[in-house]
């Protein structure tokens, strides 16, 4: 009876994972199913775009933080220039992130963008400009999140490497120091 092992491999934050997937899936589902029922375009547009925007907010502010420990935003400094700021959890907490969580996070982001691209191609082929608009908005929101988090992850890796180098260098220097003080 190895009950302890499956618990470790489960999702660490099931609620967050659920919401992360829920808004994306409901936006896609609503768009696809309502196109079949041929409802009023306004309702389709508003609900799909609102769900997509909610999903963007949830991913950027909640699931990014909790599932992968990353966060990105844009700030305008005193000189009036815009800078992109990235934030990540420190070393120990990053190591404790559930790999299943982060796998789900990244793959749903990519899948979402891919689905919207395919739907966009369908709309283009059918020459439905208004549906292309909906798809365009949802796709741009998805891509914005992908780019933001990818940049954030790259910076996190750079920072960890620099931190590791710094730790090694300081250790080396303290060893040298102690060596010289002994002599």
């Amino acid at each position, binding site marked *: 009876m190895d009950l302890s092992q499956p618990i470790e491999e489960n999702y*660490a*934050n099931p609620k*967050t994972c659920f919401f992360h997937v829920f808004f994306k899936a409901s936006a896609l589902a609503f768009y696809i199913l309502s196109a079949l029922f041929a409802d*009023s*375009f*306004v309702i389709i*547009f*508003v609900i799909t*775009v*609102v769900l997509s*925007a909610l999903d963007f*907010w949830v991913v950027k*502010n*909640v699931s990014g*933080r*909790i599932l992968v*420990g990353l*966060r990105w*935003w*844009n*700030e*305008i400094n*005193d000189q*009036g*220039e*815009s*800078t*992109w*700021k*990235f*934030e*990540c*959890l*420190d*070393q*120990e*907490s990053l190591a*404790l*992130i*559930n790999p299943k969580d982060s796998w789900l996070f990244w793959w749903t982001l990519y899948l979402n963008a891919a689905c919207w691209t395919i739907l966009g191609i369908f709309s283009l082929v059918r020459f439905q400009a*208004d549906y292309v*608009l909906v798809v365009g908005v949802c796709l741009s929101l998805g891509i914005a999140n992908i780019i933001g988090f990818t*940049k*954030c992850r790259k*910076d*996190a890796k*750079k*920072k960890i490497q*620099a*931190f590791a*180098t*710094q730790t090694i*260098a*300081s250790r080396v*220097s303290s060893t*040298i*120091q102690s060596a*010289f*003080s002994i*002599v």
Partner: protein
Amino acid sequence: MSNSHSDTIPLHASSQSDIDEIENLIHASVQSGPATVHPARPPSPPRASIPVSSSPFIQSNIPPPSSLSSSSSNQKVPSVPAAPPPPPPVGNSSSIVATGFGPPPNTLTEPVWDTVKRDLSRIVSNLKLVVFPNPYREDPGKALRDWDLWGPFFFIVFLGLTLSWSASVKKSEVFAVAFALLAAGAVILTLNVLLLGGHIIFFQSLSLLGYCLFPLDIGALICMLKDNVIVKVIVVCVTLAWSSWAAYPFMSSAVNPRRKALALYPVFLMYVSVGFLIIAID
């Protein structure tokens, strides 16, 4: 051994300074990257240090923020000690909101409700800054520092919905046209300012033009409720003037004074066309 001690002192000093130099270089290279990632480190010193709620939201394997706060407590921020009980989130979010200068340190572990409240209050404060008369407003070019696109998104959708509601036929086309016109118009107006050699940040300008739609939103709502043409014309004129007045300081401060009219005229034109849409819909 005093002999060996005196022997090693000069050597020790030079090697010590070398080691110090190397350490300083490493520190400088770590901290001087253009987009370095801080492990929940606080932002630049001039900003006020803000006490952050350290109550964990996550019931998971990730350890509670006490480990994070202990690693960040030896940084510049004197607050967020690991030992004392965390202050209540409500008090913290209000103190976080008060600065209005971007997210506070350690936002990685704040409760979700804090994030929601922070974003909502940012929308409200941006709205107040942009749209309402404020004699104590500082340099308008810098006032919308904390831009966000949620306010403009809500306003554009609301305007599209109102117009669509008021239309008796072709509701979908009205909505799509209104949305596309406003979104594309905002992008093109921003490009216009940038091409005129103005100094404005793309998203800041989008955000501004979106917030300045708020008076027209109100105008459209009133026109939807009251169907008299004269009332509509008056209401639209008033709200149009209000919108243009709100957009004027930001746009004009962004460009060369000789090109102010070139930058402002298209903005005015866009708002006039939206006004006509509002009047013409029946």
